[in-house]
Structure formats: structure tokens, C-alpha cells
């Protein structure tokens, strides 16, 4: 059996292994061999997180008898579900009984003209470090934050960044000399109505000007203007946008994704649509599921797939389906946060921001390595 799995599902690979220990062999194909805790990148621009501490060797996180192939040997270049085979960049072909796709997403700055030259972000280690420098040297002006296009990873992150930015500028005595503008593609500041109702008054209270129906079309780095498909032009001194995202090339090349490379996935069984009888599953950011592209969703999905495969291997009924569960924190600045807990049928009801939620998020950021990859939670 081959898992092509990464990051959050690591814990679930370990779990699966525990469940079906004697009858299976598991191989993880991983281009990098490194597990990155991406939520920590949010804190890098504020000098609150050393990005090098957000990485661990995948080998050390996986149980010892799970095989790991990385580098060219782990870089999957083609998947053939009909033959139940995959090919790696070193020219090898590997057969499998079950395959789980967890290839995540990639930043696609090329989708918006001028993004690479004109915009900053915190969706990679390099970009978050570059933004840290720019913020440290910032002395006032006009900052535009928000989202270039949907979908993107961790929907609350651009809002969290905006709240944290506002608080940090206040602490540095720069708030009076800085305008903050937040742009979002639809007619409210967040896709989920209940969260939108919660953040809209907070943004107003913090003096953040919200521009809705702003689908970023072009960025003019020379004149420092960001323009929307809807015809609005916003000048900026610093532009911090979640970049456009796409699925991985291997998904597109193997004909398994939609136009943008997202894998059509059954909402409940997590089997790849059109390949229901081919033992092919998808989890995490790589899917087209109507849930947040979040480690939290990947984590709950991983449990369901691990249970499904273990049940099939052990010839017992499947006990779990995925119902869209996501749990995440939303930082609101000034050392406070709220908590979002929801699924396909039940939208979140964010509680009033409290210090407790912020401390819980900080604790998760610290103890993630002990809790999630080993499959303890």
C-alpha cells in the first residue's frame, strides 16, 4: 500500500499503521522529506516566530517501520489509478493497493500580473521573512491587506494578520500615521456569514476600511496600485495579500484534478470522484471539498481515510465518514482570539474574543509536534 501523504496526515499514517499493523506495508512518498508547521508563518512578520523552528524531519515523525521515500525517489510525477501505479522522478514505478493523495496546494503568484513584484505575503517561509523586514522598516503610510483570490489556505489567516498588524502598529506608535484597508472578493469580509457578522464590527472598531467585491486583477508595482476585476483601484505603500493558490502539477498531469488542479473528492467518503472502485482517496488542501483549506480539516479527514482503509484491510464495516469538521482559532490582536468549530451542516458561532483562546492557540503551536504527528489527538 502506498501513501503519498504529508504534513497533518502524518499522525493518521501512524494511526493507520497501528490499526492494520500486521497485514500491510506503508510507504510515504514525499518530495521534500520535511514536515512544515505552516500556521507558525503568521507570526514571523511580527518577529514572534523563528521559521526554522517550524520544520522537522518527516523520518523522525513517522513510526520506524513506515517506509519514507524523499528527493527524486519520493517526488511523484504521474499517477495511474487504472493500473494502480505511480511514477517517481527517479524513473521508478511503484504499485499499490490503496493510494491517498495529500499533495496540498502551491502558491500561484503568476495568476495575478504584478503579484510577484508588488505584493508581500506570509504563505511561505521566504515571504514571511521578507515581510518581517519590511514591517520592521515601515514608518507609516497605507497598508492594503486581504486575499488575492479564492480558494486559499487557512481562510481566517488574512483577517488574523490584519488584526495583529493593527495592534502591532498601535504598540509601535504608528497607528495614527497608517491607514489599513482590507480587501475581499465577495460582499462581506469572510465567506461564512456568521464569522463575517462577528469580524465586521471588530474591523470597524479597529478603524480598518473594508473593500468588498474586490477580486484582485492586476498589481502595478511601479505606481503601487492594486486593481480589482470590479474596477476599483487602491494605492498602497505595503500590500499584503494571500496569494492565488493552485493544486499540484502531478494532479493536473495525471488528469485527476479540475482546471486549477483541485481533486474532485466525495464529501463524506473522501474517495476521488470517478475512481470510487480504485482505492483512491484524497485529503487536505489538495481536494475540492467545500471546507477550509486547513490543517484541521486535513487532520479529521486523515482519521476517516485511515479508518476506512484499516476497515477494508481487516474485512470489517467502516465506522467513520467525514462530515466537514473543522476547528480553528482566529487571532483578533492584543493577545486575544476566538474559536471556530463547524462542519458542513453547522456554521461556526464564534465566542467573544478572549485571552484564553489565544493562549490555547499558542499552546497548540508549541505542542503540535508532540500531539498531532504522533497521532495522540
Amino acid at each position, binding site marked *: 500500500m502506498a501513501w503519498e501523504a504529508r504534513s497533518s496526515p502524518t499522525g493518521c499514517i501512524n494511526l493507520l499503521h497501528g490499526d492494520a499493523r500486521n497485514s500491510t506495508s506503508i510507504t510515504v512518498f514525499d518530495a521534500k522529506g520535511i514536515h512544515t508547521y505552516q500556521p507558525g508563518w503568521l507570526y514571523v512578520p511580527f518577529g514572534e516566530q523563528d521559521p526554522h523552528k517550524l520544520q522537522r524531519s518527516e523520518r523522525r515523525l513517522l513510526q520506524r517501520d513506515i517506509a519514507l521515500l524523499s528527493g527524486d525517489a519520493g517526488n511523484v510525477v504521474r499517477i495511474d489509478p487504472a493500473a494502480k501505479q505511480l511514477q517517481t522522478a527517479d524513473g521508478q514505478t511503484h504499485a499499490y493497493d490503496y493510494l491517498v493523495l495529500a499533495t496540498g496546494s502551491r502558491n500561484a503568484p503568476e495568476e495575478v500580473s504584478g503579484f510577484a513584484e508588488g505584493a508581500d505575503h506570509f504563505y511561505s517561509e521566504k515571504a514571511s521573512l521578507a515581510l518581517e523586514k519590511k514591517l520592521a522598516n515601515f514608518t507609516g503610510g497605507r497598508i492594503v491587506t486581504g486575499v488575492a483570490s479564492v480558494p486559499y489556505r487557512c481562510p481566517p489567516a488574512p483577517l488574523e494578520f490584519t488584526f495583529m498588524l493593527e495592534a502591532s502598529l498601535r504598540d509601535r506608535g504608528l497607528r495614527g500615521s497608517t491607514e489599513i484597508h482590507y480587501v475581499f472578493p465577495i*460582499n462581506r469580509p469572510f*465567506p461564512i456569514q456568521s464569522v463575517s457578522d462577528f469580524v465586521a464590527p471588530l474591523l470597524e472598531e479597529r478603524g480598518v476600511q473594508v473593500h468588498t467585491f474586490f477580486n484582485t486583477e492586476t498589481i502595478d508595482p511601479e505606481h503601487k496600485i492594486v486593481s480589482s476585476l470590479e474596477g476599483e483601484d487602491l494605492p498602497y505603500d505595503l500590500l499584503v495579500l494571500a496569494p492565488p493558490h493552485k493544486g499540484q502539477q502531478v494532479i493536473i498531469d495525471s488528469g485527476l484534478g479540475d482546471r486549477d488542479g483541485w481533486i474532485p473528492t466525495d464529501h463524506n467518503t473522501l474517495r476521488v470522484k470517478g475512481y470510487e472502485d480504485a482505492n483512491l482517496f484524497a485529503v487536505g488542501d489538495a481536494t475540492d471539498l467545500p471546507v477550509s483549506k486547513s490543517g484541521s480539516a486535513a487532520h479529521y479527514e486523515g482519521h476517516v481515510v485511515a479508518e476506512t482503509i484499516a476497515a477494508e484491510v481487516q474485512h470489517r464495516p467502516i465506522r467513520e465518514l467525514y462530515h466537514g469538521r473543522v476547528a480553528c482559532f482566529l487571532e483578533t490582536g492584543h493577545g486575544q482570539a476566538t474559536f471556530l468549530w463547524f462542519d458542513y451542516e453547522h456554521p461556526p458561532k464564534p465566542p467573544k474574543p478572549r485571552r484564553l483562546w489565544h493562549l490555547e492557540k499558542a499552546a497548540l503551536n508549541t505542542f503540535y509536534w508532540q500531539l498531532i504527528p504522533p497521532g495522540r489527538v
Partner: protein
Amino acid sequence: MAATYQIDKTVDAKGQTCPMPVVMLAKAIKDLKPGQVLAVYATDPGAKKDIPAWANKTGNTLLETVEEPGLLTFYIKKA
């Protein structure tokens, strides 16, 4: 009546949840000339609120919204 419009382009946003129908619409209308008509097919009930609000904000005309069981069709004329 819907059938009387000459449709110049269609957007199939069936099965897409918020905010995708509006985003797909915003991208697609770019390719039309003023006066041309775009038909958007959607199933997400949120589109009933979002698409009229989008038309209002952008100055494009929402000619008609047709509701059938399990399908919403929006006809939009580019300004």
C-alpha cells in the same frame, strides 16, 4: 422570460459554494462586451443574495433570476 435572451457566455457554478459563484462570474464577465449577456448556473442558495449585491456594486444589470428545483440561473447584462 429567460428564453428570450441571447446568451453570449455561460458560467457553470453548479455545486460550487460561496464565494466561488461570484468569483467565477466576476472573471467571466471580463470577456464580454457591453450589452452582452452572461448566464450563471448555480446551486448554492447564498448566490441569491451575493449575485444581486455584486451586480449592484459593479453597475452590471441583473436581468432576471430563475429559480427551479435545485437550480438557480442568473442572467446578467454587462454595463
